[in-house]
């Protein structure tokens, strides 16, 4: 594994997450003097964005489902080269549950195996968190019916399994993911009965100077829009899904127009038959590992400086974990983080001129992401659609009414107290699914939850974890 030009004593960086940010960081760090251990939960690199079909499926043209295929090929080839050269170790199927600080350096604690029950510990001089994001889910009556999926879930099925999740689909919610999901489903042969967007992307195009500065994004949007037209997908803007219907599984969805205040206009309700309803409302950053390390979190994202450093020495972060902004922004942030880590771990002051291009891209794309956030917010009064008997927390089967009563009758004022009083967010997903919904129903701001375990860990593993380390 060792490389003649890179002694065993050169600093080691652990990069957690092999999506766009993690791959860009790995390549930059390896190219500039570090040994890198790339730790990732998936069997193949790429993350959610470059998710690959399982090899056994023998897909002939997986790129048909991806844009930016050339970026991916460049990253994949670079990774292969660095692995061959012994500069990068790629640990697949490693599910990281915690990162701890030692007196000097860090230990990454992971679980292996189909049951995620075997421990593995990776030691490094520094860590770079590229943990990505997860989908924001908002409940509505009927959302737990089989056939209702998240937009990202539908896309993952398309990219990973090449299976068509249903035959007649409605794609709904808000955010930039809806267009590619709708066109992807249509291209794969589904009839997309409607694309239902609670925002109006045209208004966004008109008012956003940040978009005008992103011709590539404009072109990408135009390509998707043209594909929608080609597939004859009707688009309903300023509309929202009010309810999903079905007995055993999804049979139809009721959609309605929104007024200017973001409230449903009851007279506009209409029913659309469908067996698949893909709903997306954007993404949230994965911050568990950063929180466990004590990194500062701003709102729901990991705080970083211009070099992508967190406020904990030796910990960098890049990509969606530091604020959701898409794969191209993640590439730029990952590159900068990798360059910074390479310089600082080698005892050099980094020269930002070395990554001026990435810096410019990052600035523009962050402005773009902020504008997108403004344009693609869920309807202001979405919580009013959640009836008292709608299940909000699926794991613990907590209803909207129970959450409301915790606030009005029992004095809960934040997501944590609602959780303690109702059990919403105490189940397997630890509130990743219902956190936004509970905050919305309780009328309190959404904050990053404290989850020192990024995933469940067997007590037998925990009882020995890091016992060989000199933790602080």
């Amino acid at each position, binding site marked *: 594994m060792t490389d003649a030009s890179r002694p065993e004593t050169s600093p080691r960086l652990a990069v957690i997450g092999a999506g766009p940010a993690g791959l860009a960081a790995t390549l930059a760090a390896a190219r500039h003097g570090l040994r890198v251990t790339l730790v990732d939960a998936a069997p193949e690199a790429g993350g959610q964005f470059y998710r690959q079909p399982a090899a056994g499926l023998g897909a002939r043209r997986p790129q048909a489902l991806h844009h930016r295929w050339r970026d991916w090929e460049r990253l994949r080839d670079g990774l292969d080269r660095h692995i061959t050269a012994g500069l990068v170790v790629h640990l697949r199927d490693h599910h990281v549950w*915690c990162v701890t600080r030692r007196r000097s350096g860090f230990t990454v604690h992971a679980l292996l195996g189909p049951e995620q029950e075997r421990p593995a510990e990776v030691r490094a001089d520094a860590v770079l968190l590229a943990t990505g994001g997860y989908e924001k889910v908002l409940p509505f009556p009927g959302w737990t019916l089989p056939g209702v999926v998240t937009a990202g879930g539908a896309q993952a099925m398309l990219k990973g399994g090449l299976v068509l999740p249903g035959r007649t689909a409605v794609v709904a919610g808000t955010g930039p993911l809806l267009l590619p999901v709708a066109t992807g489903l249509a291209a794969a042969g589904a009839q997309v009965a409607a694309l239902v967007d609670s925002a109006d992307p045209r208004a966004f195009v008109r008012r956003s100077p940040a978009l005008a500065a992103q011709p590539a994004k404009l072109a990408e949007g135009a390509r998707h829009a043209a594909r929608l037209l080609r597939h004859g997908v009707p688009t309903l803007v300023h509309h929202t899904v009010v309810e999903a219907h079905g007995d055993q599984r999804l049979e139809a969805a009721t959609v309605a127009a929104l007024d200017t205040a973001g409230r449903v206009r009851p007279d506009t309700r209409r029913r659309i038959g469908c067996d698949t309803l893909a709903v997306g409302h954007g993404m949230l950053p994965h911050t568990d590992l950063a929180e466990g390390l004590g990194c500062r979190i701003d709102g729901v994202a990991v705080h970083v400086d211009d070099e992508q450093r967190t406020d904990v020495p030796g910990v960098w972060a890049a990509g969606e974990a530091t604020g959701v902004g898409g794969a191209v922004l993640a590439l730029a942030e990952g590159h900068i983080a990798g360059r910074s880590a390479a310089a600082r771990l080698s005892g050099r002051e980094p020269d930002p001129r070395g990554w001026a291009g990435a810096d410019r891209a990052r600035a523009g794309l962050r402005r773009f992401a902020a504008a997108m956030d403004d344009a693609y917010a869920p309807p202001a009064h979405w919580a009013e659609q959640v009836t008292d008997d709608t299940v909000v927390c699926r794991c613990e089967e907590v209803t909207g009414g129970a959450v409301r009563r915790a606030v009005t009758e029992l004095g809960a004022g934040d997501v944590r107290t609602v959780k303690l009083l109702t059990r919403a967010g105490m189940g397997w997903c630890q509130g990743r699914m219902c956190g936004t919904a509970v905050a919305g129903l309780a009328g309190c701001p959404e904050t990053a939850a404290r989850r020192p375990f990024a995933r469940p860990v067997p007590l037998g593993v925990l009882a020995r974890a890091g016992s060989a380390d000199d933790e602080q």
Partner: protein
Amino acid sequence: MRLTCDVVVIGAGMAGAACALYASRAGLDVVVVDRGPVAGGTTGAGEGNLLVSDKEPGPELELALLSGRLWTGLAGELGDRIEYEPKGGVVVAADPEGLAALERFAAGQRAAGVTAENVGADQLHELEPHLAPGLAGGVRYPQDAQVMPTLAAAHLVRASGARLSTGRTVTGVLRGASGAVRGVRTDHGEIHAPAVVNAAGTWGGEVAALAGVHLPVLPRRGFVLVTEPLPPRVRHKVYAADYVADVASDSATLQTSPVVEGTAAGPVLIGASRERVGFDRSFSLPPVRALAAGATRLFPFLSGVRAMRTYLGFRPYLPDRLPAIGPDPRVPGLLHACGHEGAGIGLATGTGQLIAQVLSGKSPELDLTPFRPERFGEETV
């Protein structure tokens, strides 16, 4: 000046909720004020132990026995809503020396009114079938019980009928010309009352300072582990006998006392560690690892069970390990009900009852001398 109410209780945790309940039931008009939500401090980070088993004879045990009787009374009206479970405790000893010490300890407790039944090694597994083999024996404490602390605090406040004012920070204690309390100043206006109860838990020292008096409440950090939901396998509150020694210890080093118990909702709770590290909220593996190690030693089947989450809280303690309960002679009208360390849920009902008796001019049913808040000196703040 017009009064807002008879009593302001600062703190909507378990102690404040119990003070509000018993004061209201004594006929007083109560306002509970908290800068956070209900149970937002240590209460929401606790396990809900109502224990007599871990207390040696003395004032704390008397308070625990009084509190236990009051909890039993409350269980009749609120039992299910606060997940009250009179499950009893089982303390086990690994070796004959430990068992002898435990049995001596239990004999002393029996003389003080505790029900404690010696359990031989052969009977342990009838009580707890999944316990590790080879233990020397134990003691069963039927009076030990459990509540879900956040639910308990919220429902006691609600049952009290007191006005609850959350998200409101007390910024000063108002005092008249004579020095007596006449209410509190908050970031949302003043609340006028002739009595103020400091039930601010770990932050009780800060509230005392607002009234100009010294009360040295300090935080002790405790982690609790929560497993995935399981079918009922742990029937009692089960812990190793060294827990008793830990509770009475003054050591600043890490001590871990794996109390293991099932919950009504299914998860097993394991806790809590005890560390003096100030208000440090960051995750720390060593105490959590020690909890897991201790729990799996007691119940080997737990090795394959997953910990879903861990949470931490800051238990408020005073230098002599007893809470501050009762009127503060340095500031007429100020009462304290804080500093219960890891036993605050269990001791809250007795504390609330005693405070209510003082507030309504009755003589308290326990001698408050050991708990008097001025016992740490007159140091001005």
